[in-house]
């Protein structure tokens, strides 16, 4: 592998080279959405300027080029996850993928009194869709509690499994705290009692290689924009046999085999779940984004991010009243913190004035924040293009904000 050249990487992200409030932008909101390399932006532009056409149905040249590119992206994604092409469903994003599973597999299989296990670290998008099914079908949702260091209480998980849940739905990585959950163990234990398992990989895919066959999960979902790809596109992986048994969800073109006024028959996988003209440009560009991360190597990206995270974490402790939220041994490049006596919103506002983009608030994990007894956190998150110099600017900005507010 070639040396990890941060200069060469940053050259591919022109958005980073700008001033915010008359200071150089330091973008540390990567867990919300990371920036897009030229390869991805050019890919979208090239599609619309060279070969845009509606896919699959056309007999003409452009339709064929567009179809090939879109289906090629599906193959890239399938290879990246070690899945088959027909197991890769394009969605609008993680939330859409979870809703698809909840509204099809969930509504069909989760019955009155059935139990669903989720974790206390879930984003609202892996809670609310299940609450909707549970309300309709009369199911019970059990929560794996979160310990004070931000890890899951696996002893309670074992107890919850004794109640024979039908479904276990957890994230691989917590968006609020960066905790890496032991999904290997979670999945294998769930499989021992024949529970279905959905893994929300939104916060994992830009840091870890994912092998769905080895994991043996039934569903794996993620968003394109969290892996240097476009917004509005995401992926649902599902085991073929399960996807085949699932009813279709959205009806329309593309998802049907034949239609009469009396009835319709559904198309084969993966098209069965892709009604309507898909997000062709962003699907193609997602394939390109995955090629981009693979060209750097996820292990190399993670090693770089770990250096930034470790350095920033140590230096944040220099700030009086610093309280780190989430101190698990296994974490991604997310640092959630509070400063005693200061509101996260105030700190975030001043950091923005200093050119540093972080996220403040409950990060769409309101129940988690309530369980931790805090209003929210300030969250900084690093990506492949951040630098140690930016860590310095960030630390100095936190100190300045803290001083102004105290």
């Amino acid at each position, binding site marked *: 592998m070639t040396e990890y050249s941060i200069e060469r990487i940053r050259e591919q992200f022109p958005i980073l080279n700008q001033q915010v*409030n008359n200071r150089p932008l330091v973008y540390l909101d990567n867990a919300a959405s990371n920036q897009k390399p030229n390869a991805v932006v050019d890919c979208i532009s090239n599609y619309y300027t060279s070969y845009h056409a509606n896919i699959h149905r056309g007999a003409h040249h452009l339709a064929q080029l567009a179809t090939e590119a879109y289906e090629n992206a599906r193959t890239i994604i399938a290879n990246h996850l070690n899945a088959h092409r027909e197991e890769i469903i394009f969605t609008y994003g993680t939330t859409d993928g979870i809703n698809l599973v909840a509204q099809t597999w969930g509504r069909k299989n989760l019955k009155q009194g059935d139990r669903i296990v989720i974790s206390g670290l879930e984003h609202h998008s892996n809670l609310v869709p299940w609450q909707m099914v549970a309300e309709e079908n009369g199911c019970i949702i059990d929560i794996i509690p979160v310990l004070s260091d931000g890890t899951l209480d696996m002893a309670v998980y074992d107890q919850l499994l004794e109640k024979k849940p039908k479904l276990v739905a957890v994230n691989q990585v917590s968006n609020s705290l960066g905790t890496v959950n032991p999904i290997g163990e979670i999945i294998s234990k769930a499989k021992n009692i024949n529970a279905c398992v959905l893994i929300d990989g939104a916060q994992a895919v830009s840091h870890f290689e994912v092998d769905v066959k080895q994991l043996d999960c039934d569903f794996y979902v993620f968003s394109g924009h969290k892996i240097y790809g476009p917004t509005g596109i995401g992926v649902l992986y599902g085991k073929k046999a399960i996807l085949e048994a699932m009813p279709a969800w959205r009806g329309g073109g593309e998802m049907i085999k034949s239609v009469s006024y009396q009835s319709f028959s559904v198309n084969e996988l993966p098209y069965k779940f892709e009604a309507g003209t898909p997000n062709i440009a962003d699907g193609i560009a997602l394939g390109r984004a995955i090629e981009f991360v693979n060209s750097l190597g996820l292990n190399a990206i993670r090693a770089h991010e770990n250096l930034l995270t470790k350095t920033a974490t140590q230096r944040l402790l220099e700030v009086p009243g610093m309280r780190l939220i989430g101190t698990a041994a296994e974490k991604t490049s997310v640092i959630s913190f509070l400063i005693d006596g200061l*509101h996260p*919103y*105030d700190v975030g*506002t001043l950091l923005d004035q200093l050119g540093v983009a972080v996220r403040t*608030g*409950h990060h769409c994990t309101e129940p988690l924040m309530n369980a931790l007894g805090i209003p*929210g956190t300030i969250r900084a998150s690093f990506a492949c293009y951040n630098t140690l110099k930016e860590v310095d600017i960030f630390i100095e900005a936190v100190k300045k904000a803290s001083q*102004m507010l105290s």
Partner: protein
Amino acid sequence: MTIEQRQQEIIEEFALFDDWMQKYEHIIELGKELPVISAEYKTDDNIIKGCQSRVWLHAEMLNSGVVHFTADSDAIITKGMIAMMIRVLSDQAPEDIASADLHFVNEIGLHQHLSPTRSNGLLSMIKQMKFYSLAFQAKNNG
């Protein structure tokens, strides 16, 4: 002093600041100086929930025919912004509050605090201040 005169006063004050830091230090100071809201009004009924910071707002019609506001927030910058809103809108006639154009926020370069993406409760607070005024006005006329 009219709402417009009070806005002009704030604009002149802010013109004295050379940089953003002085400006924010001033807002933080205003937040600290905001009179404490009476505990009986700091209730869930009076809460305006932003995603980021929470705002409590209480309004009452005084015998003199003006609307008096008291408010609080858990975030100090939001509180500083509230202090300015109260300075401009409190103790004014309800019809003037309801029709007020709060252009000073733009002119002192703090309009981003009223952006819906901030969801700090400020935008909702202004709506609520106007709503109270309309309600008081309707009551008066009725």
